[in-house]
């Protein structure tokens, strides 16, 4: 056991003093950045004080109570079905595309590092960087209003979300089994099916179910941009300032999301 000499003690104290100094400097810098950004964002600082009162007033007097009778109309319930269909189709076909992309985009087992890897990475990053709602707006200009554009937007969302998670899971596998399969003279496809897939299957199933849950959440709002589903009625009601009936639709959305979350939680629990 070493004794703490005075010199060593002074050294530690000095190091601690410097680290405190740098913490202080970075805090001051962050504070300056914060003050500058409030100015840069043009935030009306004089309104912040009364802000919560106004939000509360809005919520209690104009949004409440949610008009559930309006929200239970047959055409809205039909759009609920459409929303579910869109989310299932988007998650299903998106997963079909995300599986090969995840394989190509995993650095350790990708069949081709100079072409397929950057291509798959690029597709996943592009799909991920642009939010689903923006994809929906872009795709509506190509394919017209309706749920088809929404399904395509959800496919993009799935590639970005599930594709990234799944390729990260592939990158974390045990490489010894890959080497063992490769040593038997297997080609890349065999390596994928016999060394990669068995190792990631459980994680991938969990990700696929979680991804459906995520896509379902976005599908409830896609109609806002004309891409099919429940969101269209939300937009209509807000456009005519019928806030209570809009809140009825929001209540339906929240209820559906809770159901889907419980469902995906149960499915994932049974899986493991």
């Amino acid at each position, binding site marked *: 056991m070493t004794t703490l000499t005075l010199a060593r003690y002074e050294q530690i104290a000095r190091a601690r003093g410097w680290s405190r100094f740098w913490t202080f400097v970075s805090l001051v810098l962050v504070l300056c950045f914060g003050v500058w950004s409030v100015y840069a964002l043009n935030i009306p600082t004089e309104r912040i004080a009364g802000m919560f009162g106004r939000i509360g007033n809005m919520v209690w007097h104009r949004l409440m109570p949610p008009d559930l009778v309006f929200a239970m109309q047959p055409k809205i319930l039909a759009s609920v079905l459409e929303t579910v269909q869109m989310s*299932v189709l988007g998650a299903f076909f998106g997963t079909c595309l995300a599986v090969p992309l995840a394989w190509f985009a995993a650095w350790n087992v990708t069949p081709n590092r100079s072409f397929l890897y950057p291509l798959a990475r690029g597709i996943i990053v592009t799909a991920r960087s642009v939010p689903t709602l923006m994809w929906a*707006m872009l795709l509506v200009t190509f394919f017209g209003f309706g749920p088809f554009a929404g399904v395509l937007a959800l496919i993009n969302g799935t590639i970005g979300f599930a594709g990234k998670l799944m390729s990260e899971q592939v990158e974390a596998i045990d490489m010894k089994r890959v080497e063992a399969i490769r040593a038997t003279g297997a080609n890349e496809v065999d390596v994928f099916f016999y060394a990669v897939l068995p190792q990631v299957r459980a994680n991938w199933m969990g990700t696929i179910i979680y991804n459906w849950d995520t896509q379902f*959440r*976005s599908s409830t709002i896609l109609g806002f941009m004309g891409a099919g589903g429940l969101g269209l009625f939300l937009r209509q009601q807000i456009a005519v300032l019928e806030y209570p009936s809009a809140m009825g639709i929001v209540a339906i959305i929240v209820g559906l999301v809770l159901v889907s*979350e419980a469902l995906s939680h149960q499915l994932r629990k049974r899986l493991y």
Partner: protein
Amino acid sequence: MPASDQILLSNPLRDPRTIVRRYLAIAAGLLLISWMVKDVVIDEVDWKRLGGTAELLKTLSYFVPDWTFFPQIVRPLLETLLMAFWGTLLAVCLAMPVAFMAARNITPHRWVTYPIGRALIVLSRSTHEVIFALIYVAALGLGPLPGILALASRSLGFVAKTTAEAIENVNRGPIEAMEAAGASPLAVFLYAVMPQVMPAFAGNVIFSLEINLRRASILGLVGAGGIGYVFAEAMQSLQYDRVGTIVIGLIGLVVAGEFISNRVRARIL
């Protein structure tokens, strides 16, 4: 019957009934999917108006970026980044007390504060950021302020949930030691719980900053500031070359943000 099916059906390691049931489940699933494809895609799309591949390529050519527009989107992109920053900061401040209430082991009261904390988390996690933004824009007017509040309300649930889970998994030792010394619940939280959850907490905050950057970019579609506002304007005025520029600028921003966040998280964890 194809040879492969025969082999699978006669797999001696499995009960044939299980195999048949599995095939039936897959068939039912595919049938359901094809019904949905017919219902949603084949019947709903106006195939005549859609035109052929040539027409789609023509639409795509409208989106070729117009780089002279780029200087005008630098400021909205920066605004998006700042909105994400402030939204996350606010969410962290609000999530602290919520996580304190929603962690089963340190919540002040099991039947009062615990359900409140849980309900806040569920509400925040199950409401889309656009819905929050709509409410705040209606109450506060256009601009980045409602956007920041929407981001904060939306990511509060994630930060509070992960923090509460981290708190539930802490080592009891330091907590008991402090309680034995007569420390108040707040002191226990600050000096026995926080140091233990700090690494996981920091990682989650950076992760939600990254998510909020992407969320912030769509809030402008409902008038809450940022790049989405410019995007919606360009879409509505059919200036698709500008839309192309915005999309590429956004991809650049998000990729840069993700790169930095990965670096920082790797250093913290």
